[in-house]
């Protein structure tokens, strides 16, 4: 009967969460996040259709949830109230931190700068390996959140010398309205916003976002429908469609692939994926192969062997990807090399970054143009 008692682990967890919120709150010398009133964060959602008898169909992501009155979509953060669909998390993130942009990971977009990184609860996937499940798989009322409206987000980013605002950690598609308004405000005031996403979004909202975002990073979780269905509760095709939209919109984007032993690490799958990337998106799109660690509902598979990641990177480069990286572990494959002369342009040791060989957006040794935003 000790279940409602505070364990040492729980105590440390809550103390840590409270500490991280307080640290942001205090850094402005004033209370940044006053007491929360739930209804403050509710806004009518964009991209849904009203059906008969108070039902709605969400048109934000490919799940296309049909939602009855009082119910929520699969994301857990959008609710039907009397036939009108609402987002419950506008201006109400549960995480706010300042991270190096490299942590997203994003290597060709203002390297060495910092991103004010925010997230609300919720996700439209259930990835069994989710590293951030404690916010992504929860509903807004199950996390400690703060009041942080778009104008204030950009104020804080500027005050803290953050080059960008990153919508990250959970799945920003589900807090679309909040992200969009942050991006609009940021574009107006010179603080580009970046979306760190699974890319599971319909075309119209993605194109609307592209007008205001600075860059996008997409998790391409695998290259088979089977993986998406069984491991993520989603589908692959819409993610590929999103990548094509990003290419069409000419917005800067990078791709991350978390390699999980036995599930998505076959040579064929990596080869098929990277050949598709080069053919459809071009050789300049950076591809990051990340190391998986056991967590959440996938604890029975050991971490990815480094050799598997190096092999994936080699396959990608053999297929024409010019910038293939390895992440979530230390190696020289974190560096950016000039595809022309082969010299190190940007040296990285986790989040310690030195731009050695760049002159503007060119290799200082051979004058090769390096794609990205520098």
């Amino acid at each position, binding site marked *: *009967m000790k*279940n*409602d*008692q*505070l*364990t040492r*682990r*729980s105590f440390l*967890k*809550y103390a840590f969460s409270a500490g991280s919120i307080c640290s942001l709150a205090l850094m402005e010398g004033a209370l940044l996040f006053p007491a929360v009133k739930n209804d403050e964060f509710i806004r009518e959602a964009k991209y849904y259709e009203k059906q008969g*008898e*108070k*039902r709605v169909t969400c048109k934000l992501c490919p799940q296309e*949830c*049909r939602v*009855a*009155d*009082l*119910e*929520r*979509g*699969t*994301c*857990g953060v959008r609710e039907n109230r009397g036939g009108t669909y609402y987002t419950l998390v506008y201006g109400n993130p549960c995480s706010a931190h300042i991270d190096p942009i490299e942590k997203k990971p994003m290597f060709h977009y203002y390297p060495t700068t910092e991103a004010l990184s925010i997230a609300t609860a919720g996700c439209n996937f*259930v990835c*069994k390996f989710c590293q951030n499940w404690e916010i992504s*798989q*929860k*509903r807004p*009322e*199950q*996390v400690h959140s703060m009041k942080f409206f778009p104008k204030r987000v950009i104020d804080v980013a500027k005050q803290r010398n953050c080059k960008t605002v990153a919508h990250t950690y959970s799945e920003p598609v589900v807090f679309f309205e909040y992200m969009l308004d942050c991006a609009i405000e940021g574009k107006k005031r010179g603080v580009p916003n970046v979306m760190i996403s699974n890319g599971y979004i319909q075309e119209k909202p993605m194109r609307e976002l592209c007008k205001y975002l600075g860059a996008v990073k997409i998790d391409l979780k695998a290259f088979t429908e089977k993986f998406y269905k069984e491991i993520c*509760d989603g589908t692959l095709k819409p993610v590929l469609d999103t990548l094509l939209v990003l290419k069409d919109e000419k917005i800067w984007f990078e791709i991350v692939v978390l390699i999980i032993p036995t599930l998505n690490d076959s040579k064929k799958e990596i080869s098929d994926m990277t050949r598709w990337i080069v053919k459809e998106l071009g050789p300049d799109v950076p591809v990051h192969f990340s190391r998986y*660690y*056991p*967590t*959440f*509902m996938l*604890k*029975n598979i050991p*971490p990815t062997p480094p050799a598997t990641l190096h092999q994936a990177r080699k396959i990608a480069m053999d297929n024409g990807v010019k910038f293939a990286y390895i992440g979530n572990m230390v190696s020289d494959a974190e560096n950016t090399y000039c595809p022309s002369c082969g010299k190190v342009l940007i040296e990285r040791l986790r989040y310690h970054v030195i731009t050695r060989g760049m002159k503007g957006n060119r290799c200082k040794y051979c004058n090769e143009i390096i794609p990205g935003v520098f």
Partner: protein
Amino acid sequence: MKLTRREFGKQVIYSAAALSASLSFPTFLIPSAARSRVVLARSEKLKRVNHQLSEENAAHFLDQAVVKITGRSSPPAAWKSLFSPGERIGIKLSCLPGKPLSSAHGLVMAIVRGLKAAGVSENHIYIWERTNRELERAGFDISRSGLKVEGTDAYLGDGYSENIEFAGSVGTRFSRIMEKVDALINVPVLKDHDLAGVSISMKNFYGAIYNPNKFHRNNCDPYVAELCTHPMIKDKLRLIVCDASRIQVNNGPAFYPKYAWEYGGFLVSQDPAALDYIGWQIIEKRRKQIGLKPLKAVDREPKYILTAARLKLGNIDEKYIQRIEI
């Protein structure tokens, strides 16, 4: 990061259970050894007045129902055969639609009377739902002492267990109240559900987990049934008292007066599949009466009830259900 021996064992057991379920022939065609009893109480006295039900009337019929369910000679003997002094009992309500279509206060208090008759201390009774707000909107006053009335959200952290639990394809965390109690009484409301088809006893446990929104596709099948195979539910569930004083036969779970019906009754059973099956048939019959199509015809057949039988949660073949009317 390593798999502990306990976690490994748990995953093996659930994987094996899921595998055996998926491979088996439709075992709901094979009867359980014993017939399942479902008591259906109906009376003008069990109709709602101002959304509420008389506690006296509810207690009168409920006592008769538990006697029929248990086969004991008197209500105290019947309640004592179900619950023991010293046990902690959780009473899971259904309160999402607010007062008009939530578990009626009078019926819940009648259950509390029965528990007290069994010698269960008021201190050991937990009336609960997902949130305090839902309980209050359904007409219950929050209380953390004596007879407890509280939402999962009132508990430590987000109110749910630390560990992820698995039941077939469902991975979730349970309300800490479920961990705290020794036995459960489930008090759903008989109603239609726009995705699941119907929401009766098994579906009511979506209100006991932290991520119900992840299990709504395919008419909630097999998720509802698989969830109910978890020992946290299967081993603790001792009685179901389904409020059918007012039922709703379309457009649930929100209250929609156009489709509500003053049925004046409740269903009692210990078999969740049998009770849900009987409840489903009541809804189908009423739908037909008012010119609505069968749930199957509108792509909302509650297939999870068939799955529940396949997973041996109970009987759905009427030959093996003893329906007792009072």
